[in-house]
C-alpha cells in the first residue's frame, strides 16, 4: 500500500528514480496475489463453498476475484482517504500547485488494470469451461418449470415429482455422478437456482437448456425460482435431495413398481394464497417422498 501511495505522491514531487521498480512490484503483487493465496485457507467472502464439483471451482474463482478486489480496491481506498484527509485546506485563499498531467503515472494506472483484467479473464475462462462442460451423463433429469411450480421426470422411469407454490417438490439426484439436467419452461421465463450448487440457469419457453451437476455431498438443499415469473414467483420453491446411488436406484425402482402416479397438485394451496397471510413461506410440506 505504501508503495502505491508514494507512487501517487510522485505526482507532487519529481519523478523518483525508484518509481519504475515500485510499479513493477505493485503489478506483480496484484497479479500474483490471487494465485499465491488461492492455495491457502481463505475466508468464504459470504458465498457457499458449493456441493458440486463445478460449484467448488466457482467458489475458488470467487475467492480469487475477492482477493484481487480487496488488493486493488484497498489501494484505491487508501489513496482516496489519503487524498481526502491529507490535503484538507487550512485556509480559504491559498492556491496549490496547478498540476494537471503526469503522463507516466496515468499510463501506469491504465496499463496495470489491463493486465489485471486479462488475468481475471483467463481465470474466468478456465472455470467457465468446467461449468458449461457436459460430460457423458450417468443419469438424466427433465426439469420443467411452470407458473408456479416445478416438475421433475426421469427418462426411462415412471417417477414424476410435481409441486407448486407452497408445496416444494423435491428433485432427487445421485451423489458423485454426472447428472444431466434438461431444463424447459412451459410458459414464461423462470430461474432454476440452487444456491449451494453455486449455479442458476433460466428455464425459457421454446429453448432447451442443458447442464451437468456432479454433487459431492448428500443432503437436502433449498432452491428457488430467481426470475420474476408473475404473481406467485415468491412461492416457487423446490428442493434438491442428493442421495447415494444405491438409494437413488431403489427410489427409482419403487416408483416404477408403484401404480399410483406421483402427480399431486394441492388444491388447498390456491386457497391459502388468496389470503396471503396464511401462507407457509418456509417450505415445510414437501411433495414426493424424496427417497429418504
Amino acid at each position, binding site marked *: 500500500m505504501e508503495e502505491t501511495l508514494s507512487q501517487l505522491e510522485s*505526482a507532487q514531487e519529481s519523478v523518483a528514480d525508484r518509481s519504475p521498480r515500485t510499479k513493477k512490484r505493485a503489478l506483480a503483487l496484484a497479479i500474483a496475489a490471487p494465485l499465491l493465496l488461492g492455495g491457502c485457507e481463505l475466508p468464504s*467472502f*459470504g*458465498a*457457499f463453498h458449493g456441493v458440486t464439483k*463445478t460449484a467448488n471451482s*466457482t467458489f475458488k*474463482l470467487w475467492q480469487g*476475484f475477492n482477493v484481487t*478486489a480487496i488488493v486493488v*480496491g484497498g489501494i484505491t*481506498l487508501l489513496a482516496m482517504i*489519503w487524498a*481526502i484527509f491529507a490535503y*484538507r*485546506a*487550512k485556509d480559504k485563499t491559498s*492556491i496549490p*500547485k*496547478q*498540476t*494537471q*498531467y*503526469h503522463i507516466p*503515472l*496515468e499510463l501506469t494506472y491504465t496499463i496495470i*488494470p489491463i493486465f489485471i*483484467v486479462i488475468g*481475471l479473464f483467463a481465470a*474466468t*475462462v478456465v472455470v*467457465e469451461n468446467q*461449468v*458449461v462442460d457436459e460430460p457423458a451423463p450417468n443419469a438424466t433429469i427433465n426439469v420443467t418449470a411452470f407458473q408456479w411450480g416445478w416438475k421433475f421426470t426421469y427418462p426411462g422411469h415412471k417417477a414424476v415429482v410435481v409441486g407448486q407454490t407452497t408445496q416444494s417438490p423435491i428433485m432427487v439426484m445421485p451423489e458423485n455422478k454426472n447428472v444431466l439436467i434438461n431444463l424447459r419452461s412451459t410458459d*414464461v*421465463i423462470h*430461474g432454476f*437456482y440452487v444456491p449451494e450448487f453455486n*449455479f*442458476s*440457469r*433460466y428455464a*425459457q*419457453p*421454446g429453448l432447451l437448456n442443458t447442464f451437468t451437476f456432479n454433487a459431492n455431498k448428500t443432503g437436502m438443499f433449498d432452491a*428457488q*425460482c*430467481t*426470475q*420474476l415469473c*408473475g*404473481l406467485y*414467483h*415468491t412461492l416457487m*420453491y423446490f428442493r434438491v435431495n442428493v442421495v447415494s446411488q444405491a438409494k437413488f436406484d431403489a427410489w427409482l425402482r419403487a416408483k416404477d413398481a408403484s401404480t399410483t402416479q406421483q402427480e399431486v397438485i394441492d388444491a388447498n394451496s390456491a386457497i391459502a394464497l388468496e389470503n*396471503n*397471510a396464511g*401462507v407457509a*413461506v*418456509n417450505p415445510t410440506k414437501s411433495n414426493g417422498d424424496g427417497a429418504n
Partner: protein
Amino acid sequence: MTDLIERPVSTSDGDNVDHGTETSHHHDHHGPTGIMKWLTSTDHKVIGLSYTVTSLIMMIIGGAFAEIIRAQLVSPTSNLVSFSQYNELFTMHGSVMIYLFVGPFAFAGLANYLIPIQIGAPDMAFPRLNAFSYWLYLTGSITMLSGFLVGGGAANFGWVGYAPLSSAANSPGTGADLWICALLLTGFSAIFSGVNLVATIFYLRAPGMTLFRMPIFTWNMLVTGILILLAFPVLTAGLIMLYCDRHFGTHIYTVQGGGVPLLWQHIFWFWGHPEVYILALPFFGIVTEIFPVFSKKPVFGYRGMVFATLTIAALSLGVWAHHMFTTGAVLLPFFSIMSLLIAVPTGIKMFNWIGTMWGGKVHYSTAMLMSMGFLFTFLIGGITGIFLASPPLDFFTHDTYYVVAHFHSVVMALVMGALAGIYFWAPKMTGHMMHEGIGKIQFWFLFIGTQLFTFPLYLVGLHGMPRRMANYPINPSWQTLNEWGSVGAILIGISMVLFLVNVIYSWKKPVVAGDNPWDGHTLEWFTTSPPPSHNFLSLPPIHSERPTWDYNHPDHLAIEHNHKKQAKKSAKASAASDAS
C-alpha cells in the same frame, strides 16, 4: 416572437467578475407571464429547471415506493402489501427511478441548464424541440404513474418487462399498456434531448472553445448524447414490437406463433447497458466539475478523462449480454472480456478524481462531501460489478440480492452525484445559496444509510435470496440482514426529507450567492446568478478548459508534472514557428 441572438464581445479589461449586473435590465424578458410563461418558454434555463424539479419529484415518488418495499421485507411473512401490489411496487420503483428520474435529471435537467452556459452559447441548438422533449417527458411520466389508477393496477412484470411475461396473455390489463406508452413518450423525449445536446455542443461553442477545452461535464454530456442516439431507438423499436404482440396479433416474442422470447432481452439490453452509461456519465461529469473547484486545482489528467469517456462509449455497446449469461444462449467469453475491459476506463476516472484532490487544497463543502460519498460508494458498486462480468460468478449471483445491492451501490452513488450537483449549481440557478449545515447533516444520513442499506443486501444475496420476492423463507440471518437494509433505507428517507427541508429553508431565508461563490472554473461562473436571458453579457477569453479561473487567477495556470521540460519544449516550438 423571435429574438436575434448576438454573442457578447469580450471584456478582457477589469479584474472584477461581477460585471454586467448593472446592464442586465436591457435583457429583461417581455412576453407571457405566469403559467403561460412556463407553458410557452423555450429558454433552456426554464426547461432545465422544469426537468430538474419534475425529475426530483419522480425521485421522491420512486423513493416512497422503495420505502414501502423495504417495510414489507422487514418480516419474512409480512402482508403489508399483497403479492400483486408488491410486484407493481418494485416494477414502478425501478421504472420511475431509471426512466423518469436518473436519466432525465442528468441528461435533460442539469445538462439543459448548464451545457449552453458552459460552452458560451445563448441557448440550445433547437429550443422548441427542447421544450417539446420536456412536454413529452412530463406526459410520459403522468402516463406511467396513471397505471395505479386503472383497473388491474400498474405494470407488474419488472422494470425490464421480460417477454413473454409482458405478453397480453400473461399480463393483461391497461397498466402494462400505459407502461409501454409511457416509455414510448419518454424514449422519444430522450432521443430529442440527445439530438439537442450533440447539435448544441458541435455548433454553438464560443470562439476558442475547442473540443479539448470543453469542461468534462460537457464532454460527458456529448458522449451521453451520442449514446442516447445509438441506444434509445432500439428500445423504442422493441416497445413497438411488444405493443404489436399485445394488440395486433403478431408473434415476435411469443413461442406459439414462431417468435423468439429471447429477442426481447437482446433488444432491451442492447439499449439497457448503454443506458447504464447514459445514466452514469452525466454524474461522472458532475463530480469531475466539483472535485477541481473544491481542490483549487485543474482536473487531473483531462485528456485521459476524455479518452476514458470515449472508451466507455465505444465498449458500452458490446457488453449487453452480460445481463443474459444465465439464458445459456449467449456467447460467454466475448461479453465477459468486454465487460471486464470497461472497468479499465472507469478505473482511470477513479484515479483521476483522486489525483485531482491529491496535492490540492480540499474544501469540505456539502457538494464536495457528496462527491466524496459518490467516490466511495461508486468504488464499492464498481468493484462488485466486476464480479458480475465473470459468467461463473454471475451464474450464482444473477437475480439475487447481490445484483440488487451492486446496482443500488452504483445508483446511490449517482444520487449523491445528483445532490452534489444541486448543492453546487443551485446558487447559479436560483441566485441563492443552499444551507450548508443542513446539507452536511443530509450527507451523513445519506452516506451511512446507503452503506447500511447495500452491505446487508450483498450478503443476503450471497446466501441465496432471490430478488423480487414479497416474502421469504423464515431464516433468522436473512431476516436480520433485511432489517438492517431497511434501517439503511429509512436513513436515506430521512436524508431526502432533510433535503426538502433545506430547499424550503433556503427559499424562505435566501442568502444571496453572488456570481461566483465557489471560485468556479468554467464559464457558468462568469455570468450572473441566475444568468440573464441568453446567458452572457460578456465572455472572458478562452485559453483552457477553465476560462473563469484563468481570468480570475492569471498567475495560476495549469501545468504539467514536468512542466519545466514542457516549457522549454514549447518555447522552442514557438521560436520555431516565429522563425517560419
